[in-house]
């Protein structure tokens, strides 16, 4: 019969947190999926969506107005806005994508709320489509993402839903880690250059900060798994 301390420890551990080995396997699978030519494309759209969504939310939080967002099949995107704080909005894109990836990973370790998590994310995509989708291509991409997030609700197998959302979250975080690295090879373009022009800090500083944040969120996800394994 476990004592009260042990029982309270086990009660505090969400049962949706995977073991270390499973986390590594899911991370490797997510890494593999991001490299596949066609299967990885919708998940790149997912990271791009959360990137532009973060620009939009930062605009609203800083008192600006979002006109619309544009998404492209190659994973690029634009957010058209007026007003707000340029530094906050410019920084929010890459940072926000990694943040959303970690948030989704947390949701994917909550077994009882897994269906609500999928519904919430799918609803966020549909709401963005209604408010900020203007061209057919963006609307098509957003509808695809909504389907990707809402169709799994038809499944009854909870572990599959948990694992699927965790892998999606890891893919978003991996893409959020890879995207800023592209900016190192570009000169005169990108949000890093815009931030450099609006501040006294060079573009490479901003790119490094995004990379650090993305790596940090991946580490936090690992730490959550590691702590849960220690408590078992």
């Amino acid at each position: 019969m476990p004592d009260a301390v042990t029982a309270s420890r086990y009660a505090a551990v969400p049962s949706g947190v995977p073991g270390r080995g499973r986390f590594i396997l899911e991370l490797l699978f997510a890494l593999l999926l991001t490299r596949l030519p066609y299967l990885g494309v919708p998940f790149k759209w997912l990271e791009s969506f959360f990137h532009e969504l973060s620009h939009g939310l930062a605009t609203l939080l800083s008192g600006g107005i979002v006109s619309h967002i544009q998404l492209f099949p190659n994973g690029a995107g634009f957010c058209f806005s007026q007003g707000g704080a340029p530094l906050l909005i410019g920084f929010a894109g890459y940072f926000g994508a990694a943040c959303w990836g970690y948030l989704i990973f947390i949701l994917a370790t909550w077994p009882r709320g897994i269906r609500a998590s999928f519904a919430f994310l799918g609803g966020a995509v549909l709401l963005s489509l209604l408010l900020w989708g203007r061209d057919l291509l963006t609307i098509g991409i957003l509808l695809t993402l909504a389907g990707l997030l809402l169709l799994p609700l038809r499944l009854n197998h909870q572990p599959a839903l948990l694992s699927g959302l965790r892998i999606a979250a890891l893919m978003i975080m991996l893409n959020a880690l890879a995207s800023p690295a592209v900016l190192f090879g570009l000169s005169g373009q990108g949000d890093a250059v815009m931030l450099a022009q609006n501040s006294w800090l060079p573009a490479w500083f901003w790119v490094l900060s995004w990379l650090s944040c993305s790596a940090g969120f991946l580490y936090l996800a690992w730490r959550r798994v590691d702590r849960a394994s220690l408590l078992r």
Partner: protein
Amino acid sequence: MQMNINSIGLTQAVASNRPPQTLVAPAQSGPAFIPPLPLSQSGMPTRVHASGDRPSSFHDSHLTYDSLAQGTEGAINQYMLTQNFAKRDEIQSMVGIDIYA
């Protein structure tokens, strides 16, 4: 303040952010778009021979280039095709719309 953001001027300006092959150079000085960098300038390794230096097997080198390009074209070319800082700056100054990528 209500703005007609989807005005023709903005649509045309935004349309210039599409892939370079669909763009038309404007009358004013300065490049209308930044063409995609060849891989050799982007810092990515390439085995493409310089002009005038044809390898013994030109077809093989072309295949080598393609196989390398598949691994390297993804991230940088994606960004290059849609990023146009000069045009974005023009749009911002024209209609006061900020564009974040």
